[in-house]
């Protein structure tokens, strides 16, 4: 599904340029799950930014379903983000003035095509059902627990039926038990053919993925199973 070859990203700040990603190779097929682990500042989030088309690689090639998307203009990148990617972040980023259903619907009301209200509602309810919180559809974030809020965020990522799901430390703000439920919800998406890239510090969660990659000083290496 996604294939990165020799991807390099250099941060050009006020001081010396710093190489964040150094010739990264990564390939994730449909239905596969991959964990990216590494210390803080190792470039995990930057890698996810490049994969999620938030940012462009300075060097290297990025293929999505065989199509080179390394140098996409922003308008086309936005369209691809909408149609192919789902994002889950450490912080849930739910809009507090919207209900769970409205927060999920946010990914559908994004100017990339228009769905009739009935269809929109059906897809929102289906996404909430997939993460097991359809009964909380009318609740606002303030009335939900952290785990429930993160599952709303996952439903928001799933509602457009993405090909690639990117999760940046989605359990970082949750207790172990709730975190496990969240990982369950993410893995359930892979069973429907979605590729999953999970950035995490948690070894147990990483171990549940199909593959584990270590990112050290911008260099990505696949961990050989013991």
């Amino acid at each position: 599904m996604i294939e990165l070859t020799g991807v390099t990203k250099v941060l050009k700040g006020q001081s010396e340029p710093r190489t964040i990603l150094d010739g990264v190779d990564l390939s994730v097929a449909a239905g596969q799950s991959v964990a990216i682990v590494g210390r803080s500042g190792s470039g995990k989030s930057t890698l996810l930014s490049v994969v999620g088309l938030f940012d462009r690689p300075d060097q290297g090639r990025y293929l999505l379903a065989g199509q080179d998307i390394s140098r996409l203009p922003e308008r086309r990148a936005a369209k691809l983000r909408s149609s192919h990617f789902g994002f889950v972040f450490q912080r849930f980023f739910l809009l507090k003035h919207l209900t769970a259903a409205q927060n999920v619907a946010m990914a559908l009301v994004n100017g990339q095509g228009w769905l009739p209200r009935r269809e929109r509602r059906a897809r929102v309810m289906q996404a909430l059902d997939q993460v097991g919180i359809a009964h909380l559809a009318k609740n606002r974030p303030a009335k939900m627990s952290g785990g429930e809020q993160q599952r709303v965020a996952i439903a928001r990522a799933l509602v457009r039926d993405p090909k690639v799901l990117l999760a940046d430390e989605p359990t970082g703000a949750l207790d172990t038990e709730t975190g496990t439920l969240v990982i369950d919800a993410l893995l359930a998406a892979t069973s429907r053919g979605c590729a999953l890239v999970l950035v995490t510090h948690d070894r147990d969660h990483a171990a549940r993925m199909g593959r584990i990659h270590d990112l050290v000083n911008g260099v990505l290496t696949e961990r050989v199973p013991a």
Partner: protein
Amino acid sequence: MKRFSGRFRSSLIIGLQGIRARKLRTLLSMVSLFLGVLAVVVVQAGASIAERALLADNELTWGYDGTRVIDMPPEQKAVDAVLAAVKGRSDAVASIGVQGIIGEPGVRPVNEGGAPIGQSWGGAVCYPDGRCEEPTGPQGAAIEVRLTALTGDIRQFRPFRPVSGSWLDFSTVPSMAPRLVLNKEAAKGFDQYDVPAEMRVNGAVANLTPRFVGVVDDGTGEPRAYVRADELATWLPNANLVNPNMGGELRVSLAPSSPIEQVLVAKLKGMGVEPYVDTINNREEQEDQLRLMRLIFFSMAGLVLLIGVAGILNVGLATVGERVEEFALRRAVGTPRSLLAGIVLAETLLTGLFTAAAAIGASALALKAVVLLAGGSHPILDNVQFPWEAGVAGIIAGIVAGVLGGFVPALRAAGIPIATVMRA
């Protein structure tokens, strides 16, 4: 087109959600903008009302815009031609002016020469044979008026404002005692002086006994009385109706499309009478004054509106600052930059429109209240309606303020990097 429609709907939906979520901020934006839009609405309403009042005064004196008027020297042959031309027509009215003195016979009127009450212009009494005599005798209970004989209802051309009583009824049989409608200045004289109902008209076969049936405001400052021409003709033969030696005026007012104009003008020229034909155009006469008035009003309103725009801009920028994560997240889920800008613009635009609606409603209610409370004592406020131009100006002001106030915040929202959510 479909894509535009989707983005437009998305902007409106998200914009409305944003307004509902931040009611207090929206209200604060509206407060400053409300004053600006209100200023525009009030100024436009005031300008419209003042313009109408200005025009109404001119219409009262000169007639409605578009009315054709033919003035000519008051000669006998012209009178005959005019009376023959307008007879039985509703689209043309002839008015013939003569002097009349109402009151005690053998005395000089209190306003000699038909001057405003309390003044005297002096005056000679003239006869059809051209002989004039300086008035003699004591000043007594008599009032001199400009008597205007009408062949039909002149109010279709000049909007006299009724003050009391009724207007002349042209549908009845002529009365032997001519019915008079006084203007306000003449009525003032008859209020102040107790005069007998006897009227002297130069050239009349006898003194007349007039009946006052009403009072109107005709916009003139000298005492005037209006009478049916056929009722006056009973006592004043056409031959004596006008006489250059006695002064007088002869005018025909016509509807713009009246077919008799060409015929009458040709006929008069054929008789050797030179008519002066003109079209009433008060608006053109007042255009310079109106333009200056509008310029001053709109400069003031523009300044106040600018303050309102600054308010909405300030609140808009603060709101975008607070919503950085939301906008970054929206971009992450595929919302294009243009839609983000559209969301912010939709919010400020809707705020502008809601504010405009509130300001228009408040102004309309305030005007209604002012008319109710002060309408009786200020004739300018009689039957004043909220001008639609003010409503349109308010909506335009709301839209302009919304777009101007939202433009910079919209640009800023569109430029928020998605990485904001990754770093959070």
